[in-house]
């Protein structure tokens, strides 16, 4: 009886090993799932949360931000600095300084949600790399946008 169990154990054990080997072999001949970045890229979902960026007003081309500061207040990591000024002929302020300390940002997206002007959006830029951390300590989000305060 014991001898029978001994042999049966060996046989069932070997069968279970063969089953496992069948799975890995099937894996081997199936198509790999890898996306060969950077030659190929995986699609980014529409809601992808990258670092934030400033949107421009469609009419004027100025930043939409009117420097209310609610994003800076809600940010858990205090990584947003915003300053605004009133152009002489307008009622609302316009941002003159909007700095993001990306080294602290945790990409939670609370600032985008809290913005009353809908001035912030997520960028789709994920391959960020730099040579020094200062490049990301003060990311100027107003760069490339027009400003009413040209000298």
């Amino acid at each position: 009886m014991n001898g029978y169990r001994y042999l049966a154990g060996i046989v069932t054990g070997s069968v279970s090993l063969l089953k496992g080997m069948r799975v890995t072999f099937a894996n081997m001949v199936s198509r790999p799932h890898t996306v060969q970045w950077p030659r190929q890229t995986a699609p980014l979902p529409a809601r992808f949360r990258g670092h934030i960026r400033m949107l421009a007003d469609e009419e004027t081309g100025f930043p939409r931000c009117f420097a209310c500061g609610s994003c800076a207040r809600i940010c858990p990591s205090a990584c947003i600095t915003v300053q605004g000024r009133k152009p002489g002929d307008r009622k609302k302020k316009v941002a003159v300084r909007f700095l993001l300390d990306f080294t602290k940002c945790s990409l939670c997206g609370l600032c985008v949600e809290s913005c009353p002007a809908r001035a912030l959006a997520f960028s789709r830029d994920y391959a960020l790399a730099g040579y020094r951390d200062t490049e990301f300590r003060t990311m100027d989000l107003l760069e490339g946008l027009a400003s009413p305060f040209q000298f």
Partner: protein
Amino acid sequence: MSAPPTYSLESTDNGNFLLNLGPQHPGTHGVLRVVLQMDGEYILAADPVLGYGHRMQEKIAENMTYLQALPYVCRMDYLGAMSYSLAWVCAVEKLCSFEVPERAVHVRVMACELNRIASHLLWWGAYLLDLGAFTPFLQAFADREQILDLLEYITGSRLTYCYFRFGGLAADVDDVFLRRVEDFVTGFRQRLPRYHDLVTGNVIFHHRSKDVGVILPFEAAGYGVTGPCLRGSGFAYDVRKCEPYSGYDRFEFAVPAEQEGDCLARYNVRMAEMEQSLAIIEQAVATIPDGPYRARVPRVIRPPAGEVAMAVETPRGELVIFMVSDGSTRPCRVKFRVPSFANLSIFARLARGQLLADALAILGSLDMVIPEVDR
């Protein structure tokens, strides 16, 4: 308070030696350090040393408004982040008596269960990695990746979601997402037998996990072990069933439990749980109503003074958030009772007298997330 024990890494007199397992070791899955007193390959005593990843999560939460702390709680258990944000928002909702729309409840349950499957899949792979098999890890990743894609589709993030808000969700889900979830559920059901073929039936795996690291029922209760580890020891205790929260009482599911209390029992419980999670997701997709995804809640959360305890079943066990409010915008005191910490506490007892290889198998079967232990 007694002084912390000091360790000398020199050999002790009687031929035993101390072995530092970690804080950098592939078997500890993070910055856990275990000081082992060894006699050859046998472990005489194990002493986990914690705190390498301590981030003062509780204190941080006390210095933040309720909303600001939300991204932080996700970072405690990065594999079950959904359950953590669920616990946080539910605690605040309970404190403020907010109502949550039906649609949001369904999406929350769906997201949490998807996250639970993803967490169990990663555990499945990592456990087998501890046992020395590499292929399961990446086989599990192939399916886990699909879940992360799904969650990224609705939340925009892959691990630390920060998707739930007080009174609902950050954004609604669309039909494309629901259809993709359905596809995933059917696809994953078909692929599950391959997991069992590769590992569950494997004779080597059986030898490595059966009768190894047995947690007796009274010990499990005494050490405060929860989650699959407790259910592996014969208690069918699941917060989702015992104190239903976030609408879990609306869904039909079983609480799998095993009697043996060994690594194999914990393994079987988790495998069965994945199937139950699939069933819950299926029901949630089938019965999701139309309607608002977010209730109207005040912009500034100022809960009435009082205290609340919210228990949630994370993939690792029972998480309790205890919160005291003094009526201001910030919590006065926050306490996280995390499952990994309690589950780790029994490790010293389980590892005693075991071989080194078994100790790592036991550590793997407890499914630890070290930042959660350290908070």
